[in-house]
């Protein structure tokens, strides 16, 4: 053994060489990972036993002894004693569409297919950018397909933002030309545009609809909200809630961090109040109290009210998640953006929000998944989401007493969507790894 403390000079390079080959093979893996010590071995055996018992009870119940063709629960039990899946076979259409008229069902299927098309370019950057125009039009198209009525109604609603922008573009230069300060001129023009869009939506759309309808009548048979239920309803509320709460949550998060005291106080108050009450109370407000606060005669559609409440609720949670991302960003990023001369909105859009949202992806997707499952709460106010449809089914004499099969079916539906969202989020995180150290 040489004395490694003696003065030493390397005589040449040591070339890199491959690592030693370890003992590989399944037997070695099992021995190392599952049975490496006595406690490990015991846990392996206990775990194997648990897995076996689970499979031993579920597989026969669900696959081997299950009954697909029967007319009632009693009938099921006569045939075999596994899962009575006949109830699902008989009632699956109700689960999916609620009480949507059979002959109009193609409209909701089309709306679903178009939803996938509309959402695709938003989720995957590789898609052609022109598809985003379809995504912008989708809300109106989907509303028209599902609820029916004349086409001019949704078209009128979509025209609202365009009219507001035109109003702003007309008024802003006029105001800026007068002697008032430019910041105030801009704010007044924005308020004017907001007033225009509200008035248009409250009164103008009806007039627009009526006049155009008398010229050219294009419409689909109306389907009332009370008939919409099942997974269709869950998707309507969930997708609208997710799409609406994301921008609103960003706005609230920025508002809470603002230097302007009024905006900060409003945002904080809003967030804390909404987070402080359960979603069920907000849904009750939507279904019962809201009518008392609105001018008499106006009646909001119940699904619209629920969507608004769910969106507000999720936005409050989203705001806090995004605020965490904004705070996690090193202060130097804000300073570098400032030093380059970027104003507040440009630095937010180009530098801060892309990084903050990327940091917050796990929290954001978490909120989305929670929101989607929270839509089952609408069964409490009488809407017929999948959980709400359970009760009529179980009240039916034939299916009295059935439990696991129905809840299991709903659970599988939700699992598919929620797990899908979770996988997408992991895909997104991998894709956005731009070589950070």
């Amino acid at each position, binding site marked *: 053994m040489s004395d490694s403390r003696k003065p030493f000079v390397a005589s040449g390079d040591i070339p890199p060489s491959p690592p030693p080959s370890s003992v590989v093979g399944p037997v070695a893996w099992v021995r190392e990972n599952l049975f490496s010590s006595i406690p490990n071995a015991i846990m392996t055996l206990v775990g194997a036993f648990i897995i076996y018992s689970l499979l031993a009870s579920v597989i026969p119940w669900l696959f081997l002894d299950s009954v697909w063709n029967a007319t009632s629960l009693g009938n099921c039990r006569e045939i075999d004693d596994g899962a009575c899946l006949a109830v699902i076979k008989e009632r699956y259409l109700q689960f999916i569409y609620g009480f949507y008229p059979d002959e109009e069902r193609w409209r909701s299927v089309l709306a679903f297919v178009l939803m996938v098309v509309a959402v695709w370019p938003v989720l995957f950057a590789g898609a052609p950018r022109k598809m985003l125009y379809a995504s912008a039009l989708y809300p109106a198209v989907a509303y028209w397909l599902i609820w029916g009525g004349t086409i001019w109604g949704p078209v009128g609603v979509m025209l609202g933002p365009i009219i507001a922008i035109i109003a702003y573009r007309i008024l802003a230069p006029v105001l800026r030309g007068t002697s008032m300060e430019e910041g105030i001129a801009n704010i007044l023009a924005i308020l004017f545009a907001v007033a225009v869009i509200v008035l248009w939506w409250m009164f103008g759309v009806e007039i627009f609809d009526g006049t155009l309808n008398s010229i050219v009548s294009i419409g689909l048979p109306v389907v009332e909200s009370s008939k919409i239920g099942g997974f269709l309803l869950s998707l309507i509320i969930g997708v609208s809630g997710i799409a609406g709460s994301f921008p609103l949550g960003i706005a609230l998060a920025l508002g809470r961090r603002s230097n302007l005291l009024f905006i900060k106080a409003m945002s904080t108050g809003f967030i804390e109040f909404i987070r402080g009450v359960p979603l069920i109370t907000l849904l009750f407000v939507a279904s019962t109290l809201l009518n008392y606060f609105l001018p008499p005669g106006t009646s909001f559609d119940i699904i619209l009210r629920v969507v608004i409440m769910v969106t507000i609720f999720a936005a409050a949670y989203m705001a806090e998640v995004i605020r965490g991302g904004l705070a996690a960003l090193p202060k130097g990023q804000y300073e570098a953006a400032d*030093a380059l001369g970027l104003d507040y909105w440009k630095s937010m859009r180009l530098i801060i929000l892309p990084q903050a949202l*990327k940091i917050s992806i796990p929290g954001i997707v978490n909120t989305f998944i929670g929101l989607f499952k929270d839509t089952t709460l609408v069964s409490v106010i009488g809407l017929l989401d999948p959980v709400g449809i359970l009760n009529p089914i179980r009240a039916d004499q034939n299916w009295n007493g059935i439990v696991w099969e129905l809840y299991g079916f709903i659970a599988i539906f939700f699992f598919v969507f929620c797990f899908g969202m979770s996988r997408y989020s992991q895909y997104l995180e991998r894709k956005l790894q731009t070589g950070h150290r």
Partner: protein
Amino acid sequence: MSEVAIDREIDRSKLSVSDEVAIEITAMNKWYGDFHVLRDISLTVNRGERIVVCGPSGSGKSTLIRCINRLEEHQKGTIVVDGIELSSDLKNIDKIRSEVGMCFQHFNLFPHLSVLDNCTLAPIWVRKEPRKEAEDRAMHYLERVKIADQALKFPGQLSGGQQQRVAIARSLCMNPRIMLFDEPTSALDPEMIKEVLDVMVDLAETGMTMICVTHEMGFARQVANRVIFMDQGQIIEQNEPEEFFNNPQSDRTKLFLSQILSH
């Protein structure tokens, strides 16, 4: 705090100073809450001057230069940059910030954008230049800092010295008239300090007005035309580099120099 030798030939004839005033600071005071961090600072910087600010930590040197582009606000006194007074008027602040470039100790590159995009961002979105023109200018400055071959890489894939050179190029793409450096080499390994200092010397030779907070005294000796020593928020001493290093007047200056120049 080593003295990295700048062993290339510096053409001191190129280092000229004009009579035009670039920055005028008069009786400037700043407080952080109750803490009086900058006390009665008065400083005039002419165009083409290269000023090195040194001092012990906590002396307010970084705070001083951050006040010049309004990353920090001063409560008393005036700061006039390029004839524009620094106040809370946002338009003035934005105008000043596009004339004043800044390089930070921790580079502060935007990690989600490529090197080229980092450099073209401000010209495209602030100056509203067309993309092609901005990219041409960016490649020109990236070549000047000798990093053009990494233009499509991301900051996370570069070494510290490379990142700092990109940061300098990024600031130069806005064609600033004044460059501020806040300890640009303090976060770098010694072997990378030289490449950044070379870039800064090149910049000085083009006649750029520079204010540099640094501990690199070799750079100060060779390139600066004024060295300012600050301690506890005050300007204690300022002089030409030769006089400053060979003939410090104040006791505090002597103490500081003895600490950093001997080891």
